């Protein structure tokens, strides 16, 4: 067992699950989405991005790219939350849909990561 693999796998999957947890629920319902979870999703996603840097292989580049996409989507969601004056259901819907996009990117990267792990002979 490789500790480094455990740590990076942990963060990649945690980024996805937190993202899913935030997006889950009726998009227009403000009470179904907590800002703490969005914060956690963004932080973990950033950490996952840093962990992906440094692998110059083909699959490493795609992993990094998908992570960057997730970061941008989440940052956009956070920005909207910050600048909005009063939270209404329309704003919340925008935020949730942005994080939904990030979720897609996270899912892609986790699938790639699992695929790479399965391919590895060690």
């Amino acid at each position: 067992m490789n500790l480094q693999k455990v740590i990076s796998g942990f963060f990649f999957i945690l980024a996805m699950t937190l993202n899913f947890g935030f997006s889950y629920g009726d998009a227009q319902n403000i009470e179904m989405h907590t800002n703490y979870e969005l914060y956690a999703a963004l932080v973990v996603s950033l950490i996952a991005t840093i962990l992906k840097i440094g692998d110059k292989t083909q699959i490493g580049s795609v992993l990094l790219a998908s992570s960057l996409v997730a970061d941008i989507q989440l940052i956009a969601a956070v920005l909207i939350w910050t600048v909005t004056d009063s939270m209404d259901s329309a704003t919340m819907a925008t935020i949730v849909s942005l994080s939904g996009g990030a979720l897609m990117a996270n899912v892609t990267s986790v699938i790639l990561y699992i695929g790479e792990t399965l391919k590895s002979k060690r």
Partner: protein
Amino acid sequence: MDNNALWIILQRLRTPLLVIIITYSIAILGMVLIPGVDDKGDIYHLTFFDAFYFISYTASTIGFGETPYEFTYTQRLWVLVCIYLTVVGWFYAIGTLVAVLSDKTLKNELMKGRFRKRVRALKSDFIIILGYNHVNSQVIQKLLANDLAVVLVDISEDKINGFLLEDFAHSIPVMVADALLTETLKDAGIEMDRCQAVVSHFFKEDKNLRIAILTKFLNSNVKVITKATVRDTMTSLIDTDIAKVENPFEIFAKRLDIALIAPHIMILENWIYKNYDLTHEATFLPQGRYIICGYGRMGKVVKEKLDFHGIEYVIIDENVIPTKEMIENNTFISANADDREVLLEAGIEESAVLIAGTQNDIDNISIVLTAQKLNSELYLIARENTMKEVSIFEAANIDWLFMIEKILINKTSLQLANPLKHAFLKLIIYKDEEWGTSLVNLLKSQIGANPKLMNLTITEERAYALYREIEAGESINLNILLKSLRDWKSYHNAIPLLLKRGNEEILLPHDEVMELGDQILFACDEESREEIEYIASNIYDLHYIRTGEEKKNWLLGKIFK
């Protein structure tokens, strides 16, 4: 920025970035969770944005104060933790970033990237120069003066820094790297079509051989201009097929040969190198006894030549064991030449020529000074290994100074900048005195003391009219170009010296039929140079010269009919 450099920065910054993200996120979360009291005494929580704002200016030690309301003691307790956590993380990251930016590997990568980009952006043909030393510095200047692009590589950063201070440095892509590696040569663009030649003048001659072999496998169309003073290395170099090797000692020997039997060839050579004009007096080496000081690479070639011409000589050297033949003939003195007694013993008072040819410049100059005192009539030849002491040698009043570096500079730059002149020189050194005298006299009487040289290549750009006619199947003789535009029956003052057609070289061509791609070297004056250019490129002038009639303009002719 180059790809590699970006990766180096990102990889080194991984840990610091992780540290920043983790410390910030802990601090921000704490700030949001801990309740505060606003100005009305109500309990409130900082928003994530407030917390991020506060932590950002605290971590970077800017410190705007407590916002939006004054903190409670519980909050301040947490802020204390935040300060120690984030400030340390922040400084660590900044420190690493600065270290990475001043890192040698990164700097090298950045330089390599810039170098590669500049080499790829070169529009014209270029020449790769390996190593920056006195010889190559002069070669670079001569090539630049001939509008040839140059790329420079040297392993030492100090030398490159010295080079960058020169005023011709700005137009030359330059890199610090080991020239003996394939990768460096590839970076320098050796595989590109526009790369014409590699100049490799390393002191250690096996390096030159290595460069020649690498080049042969990377791009066999590239010439390698190099030097060799040892015969083994020289043959190996020639065996690579692409190396043009110069051996300064053999060049000197050949000149000695010429000076002994055909000094007018020497006049021609000096004229082509622009050292003197044709009226310069021919150097006849005096007949008589020769003293050779130093029996190394130079002494050996000199001895061969003197043996060949049957000239009496004596060799002085203290480090070499003489052969049996030398002892029997009494032509070797095993002693230090820089000594009055030894020179007297060698018979300096009855000798005609002294050659100071040791490896040490100061020894050579000292020998010359002693010899001048002992025999003021002596003809002095001295070898100068490096150009550092050139002024001392010049002051010493030496009849013939043999400068190894200068020969290399002249040969290399001529070969690259003007291959036709170089080919001409290579051919004439095998001619005899009679041939030399007649050519010198012909040039002097027809053109003047200092004729100019011009190249003409039969291509569409350089000689449009000729190119058109020859392509159409007309047969045109070379002496068409020599006729005068004032009167087609007379000739102007140019003399064709060499015609190069593929690998064939014709010395003093006369009535050859020209072909496409021919390269012709003319000796001429300013006026005849213009005439040749007009005849070669203007269809009306060419027509007049060939037929003696003005060519009718087709369009005008139709109109006036």
